[in-house]
């Protein structure tokens, strides 16, 4: 009985596999036919093949399946098949703050509100100081979503911890619960509200806000730019960094990229001793750090205060 079942399920699987394979081949054929007939954009894009080789293809060859998914996806459900992850290489950060500026302009934020902060850290007296970019860690065991009384902040299937600003009641319990102080509250600062409105329709920017930082009296935070990610566009903190400090990717694909370089995630974490901040708290962050060893830049103290104005 049991054997029969196993047998039949294997047969089913084989059948399904065959079908899927045929469909894929057919799909690829159709795609290449189409590409041949219509326009080549001439823009070459590097992609990583399954066996880890970088190849250049025309951008018209690339079809992001998740773009269709994106149109249907709601804030509450994750993007199917994705598990977003970030790796920050502390050896590369020179505190140039381009990630912060990119993030702020992407989301219409005005200083001193930063979804992404760069902190000066020094672990011990004899240890060397280093710069520490900090986003929301989109923890796999998030203390913030547990305490939310109305399910306004929640964990999605794609690993993202999102905020529903239309539901948030502004109790700020999630902010109290976050041990990383990653969340920020919209107190309705007049200048910030105006700033957001002024930049709401910036056409040149691909606005990716699923969370609405403009909603007064609610909590917001780094949202991992899920809409951009679904389209295959990297978050602006990644693209803006001149040193390629921040890598973004998909755990399911086992790949992270900073736009220039692409790595196998597990390999990178293994070879560079990747770690997560405050592992002992058990929050299981989805943001990994590579220790600041063999630095690309010598550490320089910040000479400027950025967020002095009230």
């Amino acid at each position, binding site marked *: 009985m049991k054997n029969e079942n196993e047998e039949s399920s294997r047969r089913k699987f084989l059948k399904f596999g065959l079908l899927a394979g045929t469909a894929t081949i057919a799909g690829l054929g159709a795609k290449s036919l189409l590409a041949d007939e219509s326009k080549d954009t001439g823009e070459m894009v590097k992609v990583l093949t399954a066996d880890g080789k970088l190849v250049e293809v025309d951008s018209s060859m690339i079809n992001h399946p998740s773009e269709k998914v994106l149109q249907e996806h709601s804030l509450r459900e994750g993007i199917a098949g994705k598990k977003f992850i970030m790796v920050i290489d502390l050896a590369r950060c020179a505190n140039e703050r381009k990630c912060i500026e990119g993030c702020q302009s992407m989301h219409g934020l005005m200083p001193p509100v930063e979804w992404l902060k760069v902190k000066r850290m020094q672990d011990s007296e004899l240890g060397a100081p280093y710069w520490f970019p900090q986003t929301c860690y989109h923890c796999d065991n998030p*203390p913030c979503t547990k*305490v939310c009384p109305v*399910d306004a902040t929640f964990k999605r299937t794609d690993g993202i911890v999102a905020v529903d600003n239309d539901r948030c009641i502004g109790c*700020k319990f999630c902010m109290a619960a976050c041990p990383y102080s990653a969340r920020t509250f919209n*107190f309705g600062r007049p200048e910030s509200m105006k700033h957001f409105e002024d930049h709401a329709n910036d056409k040149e920017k691909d606005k990716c806000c699923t969370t609405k930082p403009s909603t007064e009296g609610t909590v917001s935070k780094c949202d991992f730019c899920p809409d951009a990610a679904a389209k295959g566009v990297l978050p602006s903190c990644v693209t803006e960094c001149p040193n390629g400090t921040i890598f973004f990717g998909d755990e399911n694909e086992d790949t992270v990229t900073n736009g220039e370089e692409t790595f196998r995630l597990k390999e990178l974490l293994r070879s560079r001793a990747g770690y997560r901040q405050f592992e002992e708290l058990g929050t299981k962050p989805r943001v990994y750090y590579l220790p600041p060893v063999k630095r690309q830049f010598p550490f320089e103290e910040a000479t400027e205060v*950025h967020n002095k104005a*009230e």
Partner: protein
Amino acid sequence: MSENNFKNDKTTHETFTQEEFMIMKEDLLRPVQHWGFWGKVWIAFLVVICMLGVYAYYIQETKSKYVTVSLRDYTMWGVYISNFVFFVALSLIGVLMSAVLKLTNFQWYRPLSRIAEIIAVAAIMLAGVSIVAAMGRPERLYHLVIHGRIQSPIVWDIIVILTYVTASTILLFIPLIPSLSTCKNHLTNKPKWQMKMYEIFSFGWEGSPEQWKILKKSVKILTVLVIPLGVSIHTVTAWLFATTLRAEWDSTNFGAYFVSGAFLLGVAGMIVAVFVFRKAYNLEKYLTEMHFDKLGKALVLMACIYGYFNINEYLVPAYKMSGLHANHLLDLFTGEDSHFYWLVVVFGIALPAILPLIPAMRKPLPLTILAFFVVIAGWFKRYLIVIPGLAHPYLPIQDVPDSWRHYSPSLIEMTIVAATFAAMLLIVTLFSRFFPIISVWEVAEGKLEGKDEIINYK
């Protein structure tokens, strides 16, 4: 008519003299009968403060909170939350001063129980108001009902608090029924609606043995019920903090620490309330020096228990001084908030644990002065529990404006906090002006000296 009733009943209960009851009734109904000039001034004063609070809240909600409120991303919880914790703590006064004493057969609870219960009900209501004032989107309060999730400690807190309010209100009301009947029969020159109110809410109370039986039984059940409820409201309030990963709140001691602090605050609050009612309403015969003596001793006990939990909460982590706790603890012991911290330790724990050991300190005036300081220190204690830790998170606060680093409540916030105090006092005052603040029948019953004969207190 009532006088007639009285004379007719006279023969049925010899253990308690009618003359005595008549005098007592006179004394206890006097504050309801005559409000007096200063009584009215006091009420007007409280109303004005409440109105100021309402106006401040209006400004807070219509203007930008960045301008009206000093809260920022790091100290996102301020005096509204610490005020909430204070009021929840104060509401445990009903549990201690009425229920616990009643069940353990301490007869001196009798004139205190109603004072304690109205303070409890008023305080828990104002705790709710404080929370709404702290909310970013108060108009979305109903989301708690339509989207509420049982896994959030906030939802637990709402459930136990609502249950506690209901039970306490019923517990306040049921023993009030015979008093309402007394009011109906003896008050004169009161507006019609007020007399009507007494009539409706006394539910045709006649004082038949059957009615007394039901009344006493329901009071007993509720009295037993409010003890676990009271302990849970403050324990769950402690869990609002203890369920987070923050170093300053990450403590298994928190529930007991909060409950013991609430009992200390309850005794201190009771001393102040008893003193004020005694003076303002000339109730020296009922709220006697004996009560201050007992309350003074209770204050020592509660301060010692609270001190014990404070040692567990602060000195044990301080001995280890782990990296995670050091930041917060050093701030309290020697840092920016140390002057507050040590004043609270002295006035909120040390002095109430020591001073009332001296008999002279258990006299009404000195004890009340001490208790007053304990209440003030109690408010700042909650401030110290909620706020300084927020400014010392695990990851350092860097590159932010000064106001993000140091919280000090804005004028709007302080006005609203002051208004919650005024509103609490107003509820208690108005209650005592419409209903006898000391339960006539409970005191009379106490005078029966152990004979549990039912008499008809009209």
